[in-house]
């Protein structure tokens, strides 16, 4: 049942809730979703990492899971900065916004962002992970 090889080499998780980080990472590990899972509880730190590694594509995550409501920098604020990154990086990374919010405005806003692939309401399920190819 377990695939020896993970689906993605590098995955980035951004969520201020460390329990959620733990759950997501565990799910990913369990279902071989990602080889390396970078966990950030601060969107600002995650952004700094991406800015630093703009020219080092080996460090670029293929998948980013981004929470919306976070102290300091929110998910939407992160996406505004993310848009300024190099287009190659943006092409490379698939950003999913993951939130416990069921607010229509949040969902709409997330889905309307050109750099966001999809919005997913918490909690994450293996079905969702399996849907990402």
């Amino acid at each position, binding site marked *: 049942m377990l695939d020896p090889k993970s689906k993605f080499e590098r995955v980035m998780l951004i969520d201020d*809730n460390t*329990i*959620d980080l733990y*759950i*997501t990472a*565990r*799910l990913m590990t*369990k279902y071989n979703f990602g080889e390396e899972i970078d966990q950030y509880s601060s969107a600002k730190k995650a952004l700094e990492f991406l800015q630093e590694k703009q020219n080092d594509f080996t460090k670029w995550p293929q998948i980013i899971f981004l929470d919306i*409501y976070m102290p300091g920098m929110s998910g939407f604020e992160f996406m505004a900065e993310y848009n300024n990154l190099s287009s190659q990086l943006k092409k490379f990374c698939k950003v999913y916004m993951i939130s*416990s*919010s*069921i*607010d*229509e405005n949040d969902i709409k806003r997330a889905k309307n962002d050109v750099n966001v692939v999809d919005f997913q309401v*918490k*909690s*994450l*399920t293996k079905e969702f992970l399996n849907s990402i190819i």
Partner: protein
Amino acid sequence: MMTKILILESATNDLNFICFELDRSGFNYTTINIKLIDEFENAVHNYNPDIILSGYSLMNDNGQEVLKICDRCYPLIPLILIADHIEIENCVALIKNGVSDIILKQNIASLGQKISTTLKTTRADTLPNQCEENLNDKSIYRSLIENSEDAILLTEKDGKILEANNSACQIFKMTEEEFYIFGRFSLVDHNDPSLLALIEERNLTGVAKDELTFNRKDGSSFTGEITSVVFKDIWGHEMTSIKIKDLTQYKKAEKQLAKTAAELQETVNSLNKIMNASMDLIFSVDADKKIVQINSACNSTTGYETQELVGKSYIDFIHNEDKEIIFNADQNVRNGNPIKTFEARVIHKNGTTIYILLSAQWDEDDKLIYCTAKDITEKTKLEKAYKVERERFLDLYNLAPACMGLLKGPNHIHELTNSLYLKFINKKDVIGKSILEVMPEMEDQGIIGLLDSVYNTGVPFIANEMLIQLDSNNNGLLVQTYMNFIYQAHRKSDGKIDGIFVFAIDVTEQVLSRIKIEESEKMYRQLISELPVAAYSCDADGKISFFNKAAAILWDTEPKIGEDSFCGFSKMLDEDGQTIPLHLSPMAISLNEGRIVSGRSGTVERASGERRYVLPHVVPYIDSSGKVTGAVNVVTDITEIKVAQIALELRNSELAFQNQEKEKRAAELSIANKELAYQNKEKENRANELVIANQELAFQNDEKEKRAKELILINIELHKSNKELDRFVYSISHDLRSPLTSVQGLVSIIEEESEEPSTLKHVEMIKNSINRLDEFVKKILIYSRNDRTDLELEIIPVKKTILNIIASLQNMKQAKDIHFEIEVQELSPFCTDKLRFNTIVENLISNAIKYHKPRSSDRFIKVKAVAHKEMMQLEIVDNGIGIPLMYKEKIFDMFFRISSKSEGSGIGLYIVKDTIEKLEGSIKVISQKQAGTTFEINLKNYKKC
């Protein structure tokens, strides 16, 4: 001896003259005087005078009569004639007829002596002596002849000259002797054609008279009048007496006269021409005030023909009011006081009045008043017009409610000011002084510059409500004055500017009062604007003309001033929930009917879609003519009060219900009490206890009422913070959901990793609980969102939407074996808020699934929808467990659950109702226990999108 003298003389002067001469010669006499011939005979008879003296002038007509009387009756009474002048022939004839003597008046001194002689002669007539008589006669002749101015020649008939008098010598420039020598033929011009006729006549009648040409000794000739009489002397010789009157001077005079007459006529003619050429009236009036003569100007001026004027009384042509003055003037002129420049009015033939200027003079010789007159009608009219114009101007100038003045020259010297001007600047004697001399305070106020500019350019200066400072109290303190000014250049006849007209009106009071009004209006506006109550006003057409902050807050929008009408709410509803059109709004009614509209509260919808309960109070403005010019509306927001009221009513009815329940129980207890009373005392005691318990319950009831009241108060407070609560609920829900998802995640991991059956069972229970909690939180969020967010309208595919919802709900475990029937008619595109529509349908269908009968064949849920142009009818029918009648009213209440066993949170139907109201719809429930439930929903079709 006394001599009686009878004097026949009519002229008193001559009589006195005679008497004087008689007295002077010392005559002893008595006398009587007869003036008329008729008395003569009687006088002679009665008086028997010694001598009669008679004036020769009386003899001319009646001489023969006197002589006849004397000759017939008293031939012995001598008669002496006294004459101024007498012809020789007459003398001779008179003396022949018995006159005693003739005395010329120039020889009156000889009167006494002549009377004496005559009386002597008469008394000595007893012996008349022919010779003596002849002698006497001769001496008389001689004296007459010698005294005559005419040439008198005595000749033999057709023979030599016997005698020539002195006058003859002078006329012919010859001596007596030369007459005798040359004879009479040399005297006459024999070529004169009249000569023969004269001689012929004399030979025929003895007397002839004619004009002949005579020759003088020196050869010159002259025209003379010749009288030739043939008589016989005492010896019987035929003699001729010739009298020649030198007519040279007479002829000359006659010629002169003729010439003079011609000249006179000429003069008169030219005078007439001049008179007729005169523009002035010239006329004469006689003693009877009749017009005698007029010139042509009289005709043209009065319009009357000559015959209509001449011979008429001039008074008839005078204006009635002037007749008396004219009469007095006339008298005055006749007394010798000529008048000049006398004004009078004359009536023209056509009835109009003509003004003339008269001068008149009385001529004593002609007994006429000569008048000249000038027609001054035009002049008088002009004068009158000028006078009227001048008075008008003066009135205008002095009574004008404006300061007026004329400034002359480049230094603006006052030349003319009206009284208001002086009053306004409060100065005297300004004429001749410059503006700066009179008002030095003007120097710094730019007025002089303005005047200079008008004076130099001619462009008038006009200013309204210009502020000037004037030392009008003459104490150096400047008074602020607002003036309307006009400075206008005054031009000479050649167009050059020589001064400035100043017109000024003091408008200080108007300006100050206007400023006051503006200030008070500003204050009033500020007051209204800051008023914590919504207030706005509309004009007569209903256009909003003003609104305050509170109004904008209440409306949640700011209407456009002058464009939007009647009200700032997006919608008004009556008690039945029907929309009130704008033209029936309280503001419109007040404007239309001109009355105060107040006391009826209503439901309104703000721009945001939120509903409020308001109490309008509209007061129309009505002007003095009774016309509505606008209205002001004070709108009180009574939403909180209304909500409190509704809550109160709800609580009241709940309490009433509880009361009823308790009463019932009490009644049951009472019955039980009675039954027990029959059993035993213990039971009586218990009954008593129960009564006490009952009382206790009543007391508790009171307590509950008190608490209800407290709850009402809390309710009001709660409502006040409703908004905050909404936000609070929203963020709490989020914060609740976030750990819930974490728990869900963890539970999933446990579920995945554990194979312990009891653990899995527990995990399943945890999951159910969490799902219920999550469901509840989601619903709270939906409810909160419904209140928070505006409608997002779009056309939705009704059937597809319903099918999607049913599809998602069929995963519910209770949905198994339920038959769904969908019947949708989309007669018109249906426009609504999609999410809210989903909420309604999803909740109702999931309820229908949840509360269906657990075990039954033929379970069904029917969904019928008909979308019309205006609305959509939606019906959700099931044959489930139904709702007990007593709960029918309560199912839409928040957190109401029929049984504690049910899974629901008690918020689903509340959200449905709340959302339907938001979508301007209605919901009705028909249900029968164990038979099923039908929800009938009407939703508005927004159709605008």
